[in-house]
């Protein structure tokens, strides 16, 4: 500032200096934006994390005393667990530039296979439960087989199998609900995922008086979600197979040329996704206590929403599991927060819609600059 003031005397030199300063300021500004884009490209989970924190702050004020209570936040975690697990399965598929519209129905079908086989047909759980897991794996395997062997777009294939799995669900379940009490009597293991763990009591059992844990409750289902997330994260980031998944999604031709068997990779991805859906089925039984062939009808779109809001690119090759967990939490926080704020359901749907569009816009923007 003092330099400028003294430079008034030598006008021409001063002007030159000012011009340069303006020019360099503009360049710096563009550099900052570029740097931000570069940063987001490298750490795409930053945005969902920020949105999540903003959501938490907004609802802390919009629903004072209700939203931020440990009990409510525990409930939100329970509410998002199923969608988050399906989201992990969906992330795997979307990373290969595919999409799986059948995840929700694979989950319902598996829950019916587990519950009905054990309770209605009286098959021992040691057979019925693995049968349910196998059903999920098989559904995913079929998806992958059709996608690779018939070379059809995943969107079309899974739209078809969505309908087929739905029909199989009605066929096997006869649309009959299995009650919580019947599962409890004959196959309580299926409800294990819904068991509540009071964190404070756990601390106490370990001889720790952790007061801040009072009121916090998690289910084994949520812990299972974290375990699934860690395993899939490890596979994606620490194994050759994981790199193949990213490479196949980023540029399948290049991946093939560099020696990756993309068909094998794709089939493995869909089959793994199906197996994860079966795990979600187990968590679903724990959450509702019984088996309802009607439950989870919106789970397909909910899982895609979580993945997209979590910053995974629908064009494949870029995204992360942790992003999807944030995505699921964001949707859960907004739905719960808006409900506690007294807003009608339609505004919850509205808000989720806005979140999706914003997320995809940001994704496009990052892609454009980095390209």
């Amino acid at each position, binding site marked *: 500032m003092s330099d400028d003031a003294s430079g008034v005397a030598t006008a021409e030199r001063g002007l030159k200096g000012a011009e340069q300063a303006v020019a360099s300021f503009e360049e710096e500004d563009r550099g900052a934006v570029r740097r931000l884009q570069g940063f987001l490209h490298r750490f795409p989970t930053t945005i969902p994390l920020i949105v999540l924190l903003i959501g938490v702050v907004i609802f802390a004020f919009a629903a004072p005393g209700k939203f931020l209570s440990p009990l409510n936040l525990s409930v939100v975690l329970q509410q998002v667990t*199923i969608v988050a697990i399906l989201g992990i399965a969906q992330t795997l598929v979307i990373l290969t530039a595919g999409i799986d519209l059948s995840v929700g129905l694979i989950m319902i079908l598996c829950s019916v296979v587990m519950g009905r086989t054990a309770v209605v047909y009286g098959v021992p759980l040691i057979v019925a439960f693995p049968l349910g897991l196998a059903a999920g794996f098989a559904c995913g395997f079929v998806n992958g087989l059709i996608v690779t062997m018939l070379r059809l777009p995943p969107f079309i294939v899974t739209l078809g199998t969505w309908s087929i799995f739905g029909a199989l669900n*009605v066929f096997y379940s*006869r649309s009959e*609900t299995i*009650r919580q009490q019947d599962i409890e009597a004959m196959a309580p293991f299926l409800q294990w995922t819904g068991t509540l763990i009071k964190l404070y009591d756990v601390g106490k059992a370990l001889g720790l008086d952790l007061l801040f844990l009072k009121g916090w409750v998690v289910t084994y289902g949520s812990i299972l979600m974290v375990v699934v997330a860690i395993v899939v994260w490890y596979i994606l980031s620490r194994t050759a197979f994981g790199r193949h998944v990213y490479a196949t999604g980023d540029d399948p031709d290049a991946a093939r040329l560099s020696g990756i068997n993309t068909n094998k990779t794709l089939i493995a991805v869909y089959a793994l996704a199906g197996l994860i859906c079966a795990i979600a089925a187990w968590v*679903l039984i724990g*959450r509702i206590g019984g088996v309802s062939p*009607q439950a989870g009808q919106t789970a397909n779109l909910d899982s895609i929403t979580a993945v997209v809001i979590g910053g995974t690119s629908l064009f494949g090759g870029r995204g992360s599991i942790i992003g999807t967990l944030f995505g699921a939490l964001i949707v859960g926080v907004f739905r719960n927060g808006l409900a506690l704020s*007294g807003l009608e359901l339609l505004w919850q749907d509205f808000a989720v819609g806005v979140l999706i569009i914003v997320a995809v816009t940001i994704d496009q923007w990052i892609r454009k600059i980095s390209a």
Partner: protein
Amino acid sequence: MGMKLLRMALAGAVVLGAMATSAALAQGITVGLITKTETNPFFVKMREGAQAKAKELGLTLISAAGKFDGDNDGQVAAIENLISAGAKGFAIVPSDSKAIVPTIKKARDAGLMVIVLDTPLDPMDAATATFATDNRKAGLLIGQWAAGTLGDKAKDASIVLLDLATNQPTVDYLRDQGFMAGFGIDVKDPNKYGDEDDPRICTHEISQGDQEKGRTAMENALQKCPNVNVVYTINEPAAAGAWEALKAVGKDDGSVLIVSVDGGCPGVANVKAGVIGATSQQYPLKMAAMALEAIASGTLPAIDPAAGFLDTGATLVTDKPVAGVESIDTAKGTELCWG
């Protein structure tokens, strides 16, 4: 109504005359059943009832359904197919009670007998006849039961209502408002919920009639209404979901009354187990079977002109009867249940 009945009877007589005796004439008759969806247990049972009746009467049954609740286009296509197939008539549970009316008119103009089940058309007389449950009465029964059970405490109740959908379809507001009227709440507009100002109503939440969403709705409601002691639910899956949420916070000790509507076998079993206090039982199999009989014979059963529709009944099922509210116990309810 009388004129219409007479006309129906005449039409039936003509048809009867044209064909031989009743047992033989049923041969070759095609009838239809169109439900809202093919997965909802209520409609699955309805279809099973229709199939059994069709077999008994020797009818060819074509069943169809919308893809989802509210799918009008799917039902329009189903009706067009039945007209093409030369069906004698069909029974339909309309997904959109207004939008389907022109297509129903087309079918009736083509000579088909149209019996509307469960959800009346708007206007109701667009159908040949309507066989339905009085959903408002179904709600009324559980409302009266809840008020009677609470006794003096009813005036300090904290009520959570787990409804069906934000657009308040007919069955949704009829059950909800019936419950309120039975409980002794001023319902204001009887064809809409959410406009009441009774302080005992703590919140309305949307369950979509789904067990998982029912649990989520109840969890959210618990944050707003920690002292809840009455939960109304649109159907029994929603009630089962609400129960899980209540159990998770230790409110499964009998401190909260859950009431519901449907009378499905899992629901009645839940009444027996004490999960649901009382439920209003409806009879989808009976509805469908009666409709098929009417279409096959071409004659309608007697319909009370004041109601405008044939009431297939709603019965309160509970093991804790309340004086002044007629009910059956779960043993009887189990005999009559569906799904």
